[in-house]
């Protein structure tokens, strides 16, 4: 019993280590539009849709809509202020792609480097179709 209690004590002490923030963070408050929605619901919907398809640069498996990284907050601020200024969501995406490459966007586009991703599946489906068709014909 004592051993179990001691074990639990050690585990509790260890868990504190993991709860403490492991990474240095800045002390500035978040950007004005990092967590504040736009007052116009239509604009906010546009901003939200765009933010869900932009990659967080610091935490690359999340969108900037999902991330609490300060840099993601600053990117949301950029998106919301640009949408509020009347900019087109795709123009904002293009602005980011100009700076970080295709990688920053979760909405894939056909480009010089990405075209095989679109062409190869089509080729495979086509090939499978041909094989299937020849077998059906051979049987029939």
């Amino acid at each position, binding site marked *: 019993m004592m051993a179990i209690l001691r074990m639990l004590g050690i585990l509790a002490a260890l868990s504190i280590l993991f709860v403490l923030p492991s990474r240095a963070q*800045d002390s500035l408050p978040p950007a004005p539009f990092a967590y504040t929605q736009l007052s116009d619901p239509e604009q906010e919907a546009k901003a939200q849709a765009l933010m869900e398809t932009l990659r967080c640069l610091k935490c690359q498996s999340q969108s900037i809509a999902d991330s609490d990284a300060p840099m993601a907050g600053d*990117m949301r601020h950029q998106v919301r202020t640009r949408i509020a200024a009347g900019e087109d969501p795709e123009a904002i995406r293009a602005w980011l*792609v100009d700076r*970080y490459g295709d990688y*920053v966007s979760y909405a894939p586009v056909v480009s010089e480097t990405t075209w095989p991703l679109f062409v190869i599946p089509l080729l495979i489906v086509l090939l499978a179709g041909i094989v299937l068709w020849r077998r059906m014909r051979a049987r029939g």
Partner: protein
Amino acid sequence: MKRWTLWVPLALFALFCAFAGWQLSRPKDEFVESTMIGKALPEFDLRAATADRPALATRDFLDGKPRLLNVFASWCVPCAAEAPQLEALRRRGVDIVAVAIRDRPDDVAAFLARYGNPYSRIGADDLSEVQLEIGSSGVPETFVIDGKGIIRYQHIGDIRPGDVSMLLTKLEDVR
């Protein structure tokens, strides 16, 4: 149909496994490189990040002299690690200007007092606006800017002792 064609799917599968295994054994490249190399710095005019160094604006890069633009923050640990290397570059006559990301003047001053101040100018980028404009995805990063304000090279992560001579060469190349 010839016999050997039976082996084609297996061979393809083996090829796929070899490719996947090779990719899995390689360390993942976490860096997102800027695609702004060869392009001009954006128009910006930042306030001074600390009391004892002047502010930073685009016009400060247009004097015909190449320099380093260091993106740092007082809250960033590797930024402290690269301080001796920046100091070494400064002693070699390199002009280093900086953008402090999401930082308070007091924190910047304390950081520089502790780790040294190799910068001739420091601008404060409170909303990461300049950082996003130049395609930088974290701190620290160091850009080589030529005398016309064109971004010529990006170094991601802290400057290690071995990178000092490489950066000196890059600066010499754009002179």
